[in-house]
C-alpha cells in the first residue's frame, strides 16, 4: 500500500513537472514581447530594454527556466508582470473564493438535476418520464454552456428581472443562481445519463432480482440496495468535476463577469503575464492531479477488484 502510494505520488510529481515546464515553454515560445505589452505602444526602446533587464528576460532560456523552477521549489510563484507588486500566489488566493462558490454551486445543481432524474428514469424504463429525461439530458449535453448562460441572462435577468445580470453582490446567493445553474446544467445532463445507465445495470443484477423474489419492498430495493451501487461512480464523477472546476470555469466566469481563477488565467495569457500564467496553470493542474489521485485511492479501497487489476 505504502509503495503504491509512493509510486503514484512520484507519477503525480512527474506530471506536475511536465505541466509546469510545458506552460513555461509555451509562454516563452510566444513571439510577442511581454515588455512591449507592459510598456504600452508609445514606449521608447530604452524603456523596453530596462523592463527586459528588470524581468530577467535577457537571460538565456535555460537560465530563466532554472531560476523559475528554483523559486518554485521554495514555494515562490513570483510576481505578476502586469499587476506589479502583486504576488501571483496572493492573486490566486484572492480569486479562489469566487471560483469555489461557483464550483460548489455547480456541483449541487448537477446532483439535484441529474441524480433523481437518472434514478427515476431507470426505475421506470421506457416510460414517458424516461424518454423526457433522455431527451433533456441530450439537450444539456449538446448546448454550449455560454449560450445557455446568455439565454438565462436574457430571460431571467434582462426580460423578467428576477436575478442580477452579472458580477457578485449581496446577497451572494442571489447572484450565484444563474452562473451555478449554467455550470451545473451540462453536468446534470451528464449525471442523469450516467446514473440511469448504472442504475439499469444494478436493477438488472441478480441480487436485486433476489431481493424482489424475497418480497422486499421496492423503496428498500431502490434506495438501500441499489443506490449504494451507483454511489461509487457518482462520487468519482463529483470528485473529478470538483477538481476541474476549481482550476477555473472560464466560460461561466466570462459570461457572468465573475473574477475567478478562470478569468485570472485567461487574462494572464492575453497579457503574456508569464508568472501568472504558470501560477494559474500549476494551480489548476494540482487540483486535477490531486483529485485524480484521491479518486484512484478511494476506488481501490472501496472496490477490491481494482487492486487485483492495477
Amino acid at each position: 500500500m505504502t509503495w503504491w502510494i509512493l509510486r503514484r505520488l512520484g507519477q503525480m510529481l512527474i506530471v506536475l513537472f511536465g505541466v509546469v515546464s510545458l506552460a513555461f515553454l509555451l509562454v516563452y515560445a510566444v513571439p510577442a514581447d511581454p515588455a512591449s505589452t507592459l510598456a504600452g505602444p508609445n514606449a521608447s526602446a530604452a524603456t523596453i530594454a530596462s523592463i527586459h533587464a528588470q524581468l530577467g528576460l535577457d537571460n538565456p532560456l535555460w537560465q530563466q527556466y532554472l531560476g523559475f523552477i528554483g523559486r518554485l521549489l521554495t514555494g515562490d510563484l513570483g510576481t505578476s508582470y502586469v499587476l506589479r507588486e502583486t504576488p501571483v500566489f496572493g492573486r490566486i488566493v484572492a480569486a479562489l473564493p469566487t471560483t469555489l462558490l461557483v464550483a460548489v454551486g455547480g456541483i449541487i445543481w448537477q446532483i439535484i438535476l441529474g441524480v433523481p432524474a437518472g434514478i427515476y428514469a431507470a426505475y421506470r424504463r421506457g416510460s414517458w418520464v424516461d424518454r423526457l429525461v433522455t431527451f433533456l439530458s441530450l439537450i444539456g449535453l449538446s448546448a454550449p454552456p455560454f449560450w445557455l448562460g446568455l439565454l438565462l441572462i436574457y430571460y431571467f435577468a434582462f426580460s423578467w428581472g428576477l436575478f442580477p445580470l452579472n458580477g457578485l453582490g449581496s446577497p451572494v446567493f442571489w447572484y450565484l443562481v444563474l452562473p451555478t445553474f449554467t455550470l451545473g446544467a451540462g453536468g446534470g445532463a451528464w449525471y442523469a445519463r450516467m446514473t440511469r445507465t448504472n442504475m439499469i445495470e444494478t436493477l438488472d443484477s441478480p441480487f436485486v432480482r433476489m431481493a424482489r423474489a424475497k418480497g422486499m419492498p421496492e423503496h428498500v430495493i431502490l434506495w438501500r440496495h441499489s443506490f449504494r451501487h451507483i454511489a461509487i461512480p457518482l462520487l468519482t464523477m463529483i470528485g473529478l468535476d470538483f477538481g476541474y472546476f476549481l482550476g477555473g470555469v472560464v466560460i461561466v466566469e466570462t459570461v457572468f463577469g465573475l473574477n475567478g481563477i478562470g478569468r485570472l488565467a485567461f487574462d494572464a495569457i492575453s497579457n503574456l503575464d508569464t508568472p501568472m500564467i504558470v501560477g494559474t496553470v500549476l494551480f489548476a493542474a494540482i487540483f486535477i492531479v490531486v483529485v485524480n489521485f484521491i479518486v484512484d485511492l478511494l476506488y481501490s479501497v472501496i472496490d477490491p477488484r481494482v487492486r487485483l487489476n492495477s
Partner: protein
Amino acid sequence: MSSVLLEVDDLEVTFRRSAGPGRKAASVPAVRGVSFQLEAGTTLGIAGESGSGKSTIARTLMGINKPSGGSMRLNGSDVGALRGRELAEYRQTMQMIFQDPYDSLDPRMKVSETLLEAIKLRKNKPASPLGEVYQLLERVGLSKSFASRRPRELSGGQRQRVSIARALCVDPRLILCDEAVSALDVSVRAQVLNLLKDLQEDLGLAYLFISHDLSTLRFMADYVGIMYLGKIVELGTRDEIFERPQHPYTRALLSAVPEPVVVDRTVRLPRVRLTGEPPSSTNPPTGCSFHPRCPLAQEVCRTTAPARRVTSSGQLAACHFAEPELVVAEA
C-alpha cells in the same frame, strides 16, 4: 533414433508482480529449474494441475515470457543468444497451438487470409500461395470450401484444424500444444488427436503436449513429465509413468483419473487421495514442495528438497521415497 531437437536445462521463469494498493510487490517463481530433452519426431507430454507452470514453459519457449535462468537449446544452438533473423527462423521452427479455439483465430479474417498471411512468412515462398492454402486445408482434413469461411462459421474442432494448418504454414519441426484439445468435445477431441498423430508420422513432427488430462497424454505421448509447483517431479516414458509411477503426486493424479482409462495396469497400485489446495507459488513450501499434501511426508521432506534421480523402474523422480518397494499408506 535419438537426435535431440530441443534441450531445456534448468529453466527458471519468475514473474514480478508490482505493488498495488493493499499488496506488496512480489516475485512469483512459475518455473523452478525444469530440464528435459525432446527428440525429433517424438511427443513429450507434460501434466500437472493448473498453476503448476506447464503453460509457462510453452510460452517461454515461444518467447512470450522471458526466462530468468537456465538455457533452451534448439538443434544445438542456444536460443537465448539468438537475435534478428536467426531468432525469427528459430521461432518458425517451433509453432504453437492454443487452448481456446474461439480466440486463436482472428475473427475478422477469412481462413484463406489467415493462412496466406502465415505462408508469406515462410523462408521459401511457394509458387502458388493459394494452392498451398488448399493443400494445407486438405492436410488437416478440411475441404477447399473452408478457405472462404470466417472463424465464427466454424465449429471448435474445425477452428483447431485451421490453427494446426496455420502452424504448418512455416514448416515447423516442433509444435507446442497448450491444452490444444481441452476445450473440444470428446468425440471431436479424438479426431484432432488422430490428426496430430498422422501429421507426426507424415512430417516427422515433434510435439510438446501440455494437458491436465492424463488420458489424452496416455494416448499421445511417448514421454511424460509430471509438474508440481514449477518443477518436474517425475519424468519417464509413457509406460513408466502410467504403469509404475514412483512419485506420490503422480500416483495421486492417476488415482484421480476416472475409470476405466488406467485400470489395465499389471500391478495394482494403492490409491492416493490428494487433499487440500496447491500451495501458493509466490511462497512455495520449504524442502519438497509437495510435502504439505503428501501422505508419505517425513521430517526430511520438510527440510530437504529431493534431488531428481533415476529410480529402480527406470524413470526420473524427485522424491526421497521413490523406490520400487514403496509402501504407501492408505489415505
